[in-house]
């Protein structure tokens, strides 16, 4: 009897000891200013509200598919929540590496009672995906290096006569192929049909060939801002948030060319195969970090548009600069006069093939 009491006592102590111990949660994201905005808007308030949770940041989002595959193969998932772009989320969901989310029970409704599914709307591109922001890939140009008539169209990137000088483009086919075809007279709705044919690919490469000698190819998001700041290029593509930081925070003579900006989504997945406790903890975090207020909060730190419709009216001033953030959002009506929709499903099929062709073209 005594022994039994002792055992019960010991197990109670043990249980309370484990709950008192901080529980580690590994959240994977992109690093840099983007992770900083998530830290301020999501992680810090969440840890303040849940003292038992300790969030560890991992900056491996660009390797998420490979690493989750390897973890699944080994049967040892070490990540709890992963921030990925839509294309990777779709792929992870398809491969069964991400858990399916039920928006009705797992996500917060909007303050006015709109269901999460309706609030996110079309942005829920996969059943495993909880979008958090809309960003765009677009061009920035040096206001002092483009002459008296600043560029207004994406096709000015292909115009070496009026805008001589170096430009930077991303070292991959996505976006570049589309822009090339758009500027070669292909209608926006036909772009992917044309790209499916060998002639269409040749057409896109031929257009890119006209500026190939004047292109600096970038692979990290920080490259174009750096190249613009150094005056090594007169215009270049990158994520709109990076250009915002360059223009508003660093005060560089750079302006945005929103024309034909390509929308993409970034958001969360929870890896499949977590233990029930860890899965519950991850869901608890997601419920908190994707509610209307939290998504609006993130826009205080970085100029990406919140993925919920109900967050848009709550977007306020920048946390340190004090400027109104709404006009800097890619979704702001003034910026979104001509946007291009990136076709995830199409790229899932053709990425392997086009990547190889693009790299071969680059190396020529």
């Amino acid at each position: 009897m005594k022994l039994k009491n002792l055992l019960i006592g010991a197990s109670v102590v043990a249980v309370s000891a484990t709950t008192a111990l901080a529980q580690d949660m590994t959240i994977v994201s992109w690093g840099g200013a983007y992770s900083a905005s998530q830290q301020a808007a999501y992680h810090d308030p969440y840890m303040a509200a849940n003292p038992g949770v300790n969030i560890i940041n991992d900056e491996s989002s660009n390797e998420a598919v490979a690493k989750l595959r390897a973890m699944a193969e080994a049967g040892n998932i070490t990540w709890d929540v992963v921030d990925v772009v839509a294309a990777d989320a779709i792929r992870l969901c398809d491969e069964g590496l991400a858990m399916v989310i039920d928006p009705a029970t797992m996500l917060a409704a909007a303050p006015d009672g709109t269901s999460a599914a309706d609030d996110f709307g079309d942005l829920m591109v996969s059943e495993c995906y909880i979008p958090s922001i809309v960003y765009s890939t677009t061009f920035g140009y040096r206001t002092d290096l483009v002459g008296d008539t600043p560029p207004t169209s994406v096709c000015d990137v292909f115009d070496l006569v009026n805008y001589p000088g170096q430009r930077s483009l991303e070292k991959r086919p996505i976006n570049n192929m589309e822009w090339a075809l758009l500027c070669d007279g292909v209608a926006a709705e036909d772009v992917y049909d044309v790209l499916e044919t060998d002639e269409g690919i040749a057409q896109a490469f031929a257009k890119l060939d006209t500026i190939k000698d004047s292109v600096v190819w970038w692979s990290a998001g920080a490259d174009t801002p750096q190249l613009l700041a150094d005056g090594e290029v007169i215009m270049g593509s990158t994520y709109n948030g990076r250009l915002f930081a360059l223009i508003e925070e660093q005060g560089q003579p750079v302006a945005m060319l929103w024309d034909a900006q390509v929308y993409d989504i970034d958001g969360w997945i929870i890896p499949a195969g977590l233990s029930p406790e860890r899965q519950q903890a991850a869901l608890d975090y997601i419920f908190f970090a994707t509610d209307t207020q939290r998504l609006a909060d993130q826009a205080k730190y970085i100029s990406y548009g919140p993925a919920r419709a109900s967050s848009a009216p709550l977007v306020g001033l920048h946390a340190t600069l004090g400027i109104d953030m709404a006009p800097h959002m890619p979704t702001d009506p003034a910026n979104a006069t001509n946007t291009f929709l990136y076709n995830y499903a199409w790229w899932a099929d053709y990425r392997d093939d086009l990547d190889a062709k693009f790299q071969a073209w680059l190396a020529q």
Partner: protein
Amino acid sequence: MSDATTTGPVLAADGTPLKKSLSKALRRQKIRALMLIAPLLLFVTVTFILPIGDMLFRSVENEIVSNILPRTVVELDSWDSTSGDLPDEAVYAALAADLLIAVENRTHIKVGIRLNYELSGMTSLFKKTGRVVDDFDPDLTFAEQFIDIRDDWGEVETWQTIQMYSSVYTNGYFVSAIDMRKGPDGLERLPDGQRVYITSMIRTLVMTLAITLLCLIIGYPVAWLLANLPMAKANLLMILVLLPFWTSLLVRTSAWKVLLQKQGVINDVLVWIGIISDDSRLAMINNQAGTIITMTHILLPFMILPLYSVMKGIPPTYLRAAKSLGATNWTAFWRVYFPQSVPGIGAGAILVFILSVGYYITPELVGGPSGKFLSNWIAEFVLARPNWGLAAALGAILLGLVMFLYVLYDKIVGIDNVKLG
């Protein structure tokens, strides 16, 4: 008794035959040596050799299709892919049965992704089909319904691809790695504009060769000077060779990045002297020139040190003898000294070549698109754009090349004679 001692074997002190005793001692010595080596051998095997083996296995392993579509693979076996006809109804029925289970396990798109490496469009074909696979109408033929979902199921090419990659082992990744494609009539080369890996292999080899030659041309005079100076002076100058050798690779690469960029030190100096104008600064980074300059600097000590140790062993009297016999400086050097330094050249050149051909960090940081080595492709296919089979096949090819050179090095120099510092 006395007979036995005179004609029998010689005995050791304890009475056993000496021969036996000696061989026992030898065996004990061998065992003791092996016991000392065994822990390390085990360690290296587990932490290094097995991983390499596992990686090599991935380059031929192809279980995914036959695991997820077992019935289809069996049924498809008897289909003649060259006939131009579509497979018969049994194959379609088998596929429907396989997909039903695969969709349940969420594995059907994995097959699509695997096959998409070979034929674009397979990912979405399996995805779309997976969505409607439980709505099949038993009154219609499966073939009809599949083709109804997407025309691709009525294309012979789709089925050829599935059949071609249904075996448990495949040479498909190696075929892709040498820019070829498995067609119905055997291997065919990819069109000109799409040969990426062969181009990259050739470029890697050419650049490695250029780096090796540059190291030799630059390293030879320095090694000669070091070998012929008095000891004290040579030791002092040797520090200038050893310091870069001991300095972090990242430090040296950052240094070159600082020196070579457009707004960097070298361009600044050239503009200041007036050799180039401010708006025509040289592009020396993010291209092949950047990679070659930086890697030559990084690998130069690996050329100088073996050259030096060989030259150190060439008696200076030979050269003097040749000259006193009437040879000019050049003849004396070329006919007498140089042939004796050839082992050093061989050792240094192979070492530099082996180290250089597998470089990843430096080309990644200063190479740009045109300075990309085969290693950079491999890294990309492991993490950024996972296609592990192809990464493993490219890795196996690179490893084969390096192993060949390693054996060559062993034959010429001997692994035991590698000298460090």
